[in-house]
């Protein structure tokens, strides 16, 4: 194996960290240099990630590629084991893409109270944490990346957030930490129960699929990791940190939070919880499906009650992640493919929605739907047009990215894995179907109140700029992605399908 193959994903993952350090040494006054470095490092990392995607062998099915497995902390048996497969790759590339676009956006938009240097350094640190989560194949390594993400996001919300930022930041930090404590408990259990003791995810998967874990243990351990992952997703009813975090976070914080952070939870289910604890997964799947179905309907209804645009989008995330979890709960190849597709699509679409809302706020200095008062498409036709397009993508229009994850999740729910109760899951499917109607309802109603109608008197004279060049640069890739994934779903399914089948094989499905 060439040195490139052994080191590529590590290079991409840690380049942002290097960037963060470099930026730390640049004097504060050199704003331009700081911003350029942010773009440079995220851009370089993205370039490496793209090179990895190009070098990826798509025909190989499930196996790990770009793998590196080496000594790390021998005393506890933790190894530096990283690699990438069809399940990781889409999320991995998405991480670098969104981080880069956020750095570009930061070129022009640094929220109060400024401090560009710290703002960008934290973004870069965050990027390393997120990317690392998707390539770690050692539980300790996974956990470190997982926790690494918390700190920069905590500060991004706590320092650059809006009015109620401290509450939101602490809530985000402690709630997710609360979950990860139980997750860690589950990990430690796996380690001690495996014989020989190991933190290696692939080895644990082998143990799990060969029935090496007792049923009782699986049920307990699953409950632990479930809590960690479910809070991160977030699944109903553990979602209440999310609307607060989103509402208060700065724009790029929201984009990365919705775009990547939430996927760490769903990814954890697919990568760890299901294959390592297959018996428990089957036992818990109906409950997960139930929570997912509730999330879809509940979030859609809650969206209808929102008066704050950003909070509305935040709640919509809960619903969309409900579809992802519903797919996972079916324990079928279609469902899990749907889940990964849904994660990527949600990353593009909801990331884009938060960009739009951020730009609306930048112009109007309010996010209250009633204050905006309509007429956005008259006042700012391009911003309004992009917003409408993305909202329509988010409600699941075929031909755009949001459709396939949703519809395949529903399809898998019609026909879940053999061990599951088909009637029950068809009930979830019906709930999901009702959810799609409600989702269309709240998005179209939102557009009616924000985009349509005439410009209210108070905004008539205001000189508000339409979409700026830097915004186009950071949005166009997402807009293209939304169309491309909708028209060519193979872009994602072609990558994930082999790996998912390999995983299901392990899982005995």
């Amino acid at each position, binding site marked *: 194996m060439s040195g490139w193959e052994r080191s590529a994903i590590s290079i991409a993952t840690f380049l942002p960290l290097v960037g963060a350090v470099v930026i730390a040494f640049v004097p504060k006054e050199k704003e331009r240099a700081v911003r350029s470095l942010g773009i440079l490092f995220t851009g370089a990392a993205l370039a490496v990630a793209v090179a990895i995607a190009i070098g990826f062998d798509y025909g190989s099915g499930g196996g790990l590629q770009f793998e590196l497995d080496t000594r790390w902390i021998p005393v506890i048996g933790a190894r530096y084991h990283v690699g990438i497969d069809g399940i990781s790759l889409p999320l991995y590339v998405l991480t670098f893409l969104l981080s880069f676009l956020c750095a570009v956006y930061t070129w022009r938009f640094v929220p109060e109270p400024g401090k560009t240097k710290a703002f960008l350094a934290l973004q870069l640190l965050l990027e390393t944490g997120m990317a690392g989560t998707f390539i770690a194949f050692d539980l300790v390594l996974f956990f470190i990346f997982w926790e690494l993400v918390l700190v920069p996001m905590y500060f991004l919300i706590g320092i650059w957030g809006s009015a109620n930022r401290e509450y939101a930041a602490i809530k985000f930090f402690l709630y997710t930490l609360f979950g990860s404590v139980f997750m860690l408990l589950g990990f430690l259990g796996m380690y001690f129960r495996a014989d020989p003791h190991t933190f290696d995810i692939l080895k644990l998967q082998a143990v799990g699929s060969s029935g090496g874990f007792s049923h009782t243990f699986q049920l307990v351990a699953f409950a632990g990791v479930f809590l960690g992952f479910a809070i991160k997703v977030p699944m109903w009813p553990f979602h209440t940190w999310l609307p607060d975090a989103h509402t208060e976070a700065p724009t790029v914080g929201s984009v990365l939070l919705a775009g990547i952070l939430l996927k760490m939870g769903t990814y954890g289910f697919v990568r760890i919880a299901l294959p390592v604890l297959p018996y428990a997964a089957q036992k818990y799947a109906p409950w997960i499906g139930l929570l997912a179905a509730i999330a879809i309907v509940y979030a859609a209804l809650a969206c209808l009650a929102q008066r704050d645009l950003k909070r509305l989008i935040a709640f919509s995330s809960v619903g969309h992640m409900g579809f992802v979890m519903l797919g996972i709960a079916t324990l079928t190849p279609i469902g899990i493919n749907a889940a990964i597709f849904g994660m990527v699509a949600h990353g593009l679409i909801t990331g884009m929605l938060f960009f739009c809302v951020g730009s609306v706020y930048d112009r109007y200095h309010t996010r209250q739907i009633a204050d905006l008062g309509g007429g956005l498409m008259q006042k700012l036709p391009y911003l309004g047009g992009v917003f409408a397009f993305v909202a329509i993508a988010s409600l699941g229009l075929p031909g755009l990215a949001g459709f396939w994850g949703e519809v395949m999740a529903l399809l898998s729910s019609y026909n879940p894995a053999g061990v599951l109760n088909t009637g029950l899951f068809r009930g979830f499917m019906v709930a999901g179907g009702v959810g*799609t109607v409600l989702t269309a309802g709240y998005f179209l109603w939102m557009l009616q109140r924000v985009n349509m109608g005439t410009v209210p008197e108070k905004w008539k004279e205001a000189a508000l700029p339409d979409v700026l060049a830097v915004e186009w640069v950071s949005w166009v890739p997402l807009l293209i992605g939304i169309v491309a994934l909708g028209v060519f779903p193979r872009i994602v399914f072609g990558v994930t399908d082999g790996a998912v089948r390999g995983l299901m094989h392990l899982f005995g499905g």
Partner: protein
Amino acid sequence: MTSPGFAKYAWVVAALPIASAGLTLFFGKRTPGRGWIYGVLTVGAGFVLSLLVLWHFVQGGGVYASSVDWFRVGPLRFEIGQYVDGLTAVMLIVVTTVSLCVHVYSIGYMHGDQRFTWFYVVLSIFTFAMLTVVVSDNLFQLLVGWEIMGICSYLLIGHWWEEHVNSSAAIKAFITTKTGDVPFLFGIFVLVVATGTTNIHQIGELVGAGDLSRGVVSAAALLLFGGAIGKSAQFPLHVWLPDAMQGPTPVSALIHAATMVAAGVYLVGRLFEVCVHADPWVLQVVGIVGGITALGAALLGLVQDDIKRVLAYSTISQLAYMVSLMSAGPAGRNAAFFHLFTHAFFKALLFLGSGAVIHAVHSNNMSEMGGLRKPMPITFWTFVIGSAALAGIPPLAGFWSKDELLASASKGHEVVFVVLLLTALVTAFYTTRMVMLTFFGEYRGHGHPHEAPASMTGPLVALAAGTVGVGFLGASFAHAVFFKWVFFEEPEAIRFVPWVAALSTGAALLGVLVGVAVYGRARERDPMLAMGPFTTLLVRKYFMDDLYMKGIVLPVRDKVSAFVYWTNQNVLDGIVNGAARLARWFSRGVNGFDRTVVDGAVNGVAQTAGFTGGLLRYLQSGNVQRYAALLFAGVVVLAVIFTRV
């Protein structure tokens, strides 16, 4: 098998308009006409190509099917493909003809509109989506086209979104049809999972061969019919179509008369094997829905003042003719398709004619029209031709197809027959009322109405010619060639039945005569509005809008959502915040470090949520890190205990 000829290129007809959409979007504003040119050219080319495709079948050519891989997920393969038979060819003709007419007509009608270019973009996307449905050989591709049509319908109904009433109508249309699309989607699931394929014709064969249980087939048929009910505006989901008239009139002609709303009927016909093999009661449901809608909508057409709403209810009613006949077996299906074909011509004609009138008088209301036959002769005569076809006067298109429908219903579907005959009478009457109020008597509006420009009258004349001509394709003395093209076999005996023809012509004439008698002279008050409770019932649309709005939409939007959000803030979040308060109280009394390990963990759990009040202090004091450290210490020890269990 004969060579595929031009049938091979049916997909090109569908692909052309999407190219036009892209060109118009990015370059349209720079062209001399602000963007109509691409749409007119591509749809025009598509029309010519459609004629060549049809020619293949006129010559007796065979079916052509081809597909390419789209993507795979788990065990399922998805393809993009085309299935081209006589029905496809005829549908291509219908869609491209009407779309071309509307593209040309809109040059004049939408002239000066501030979003002229955008209008043409969406028109092209819509045409693409409808043609995608028509050529599709599989259910998912069909679904994609189906839903894109829905969003185009939304965008075009709400084209003038400055007005709240327009955007509301657009939302209503989208949500109502989406309500039907959900069962439709589930119906697709049922078939795809049961057969393992998405290909419509493989599914048809498997169902035909009896590979699927009757229960599965019945469920699929019923669910798919849900989609047809929504898209084709059938009871009880018909309520969106009259409101959809808020859109520009060319849109009403294309989407809400000739093509999209017919897609539901097309779907039922395409998946006819599924319907035929379902339990008989499923077909009865189809027949009942069709029957109720046909008569119910026709009656609503009696009291409308808005000329487009008359036409909208008439569209619902005519679509219901087709739907109800889907329950009458293969002969009924053939007749229904023939009616779909002829209806597209005369209803598009009527809508475009009404558009010319609206363009001239700047109002949709017939109470502000009257006497327009003199200033608008071309519009008048073409409108009369369309109206006569709608009323079912021989020898126009509507007569032949309606006659086929009634003839096939007369054999064994007596109830349907009677309802449809009654509907024919009502149809003739409200059509006459519309013509009389619009074109006869004194002009009651403002200004001086004038004839429409050539870009608008041209399509009117073209569609009028079609309205006169296409009916003969299905006439038995012309060997009913339509049915040979469409089904490649001797049509199942729908012969010309003299007594049926006499009855239906009699009903039509009676309706016209009564209409002329009632509206032949000026009246203070429209007699239709003086029928007491019956009028109220009709004016209030059987109270269905009220029921939906006050019974479902508003409560969900305002009350249920508020309650749900309340539970979110006070129950779910309340538990979180409550745990925090408890933890703070607990930790004040207990010095965390002194306690046993298990207590420490419990404490930590509680403190995790410790974030009410005095939050800034937490952030600044570094307590977060201390709690985190505490938590981890507890966890590690707990883990050890736990693994020894």
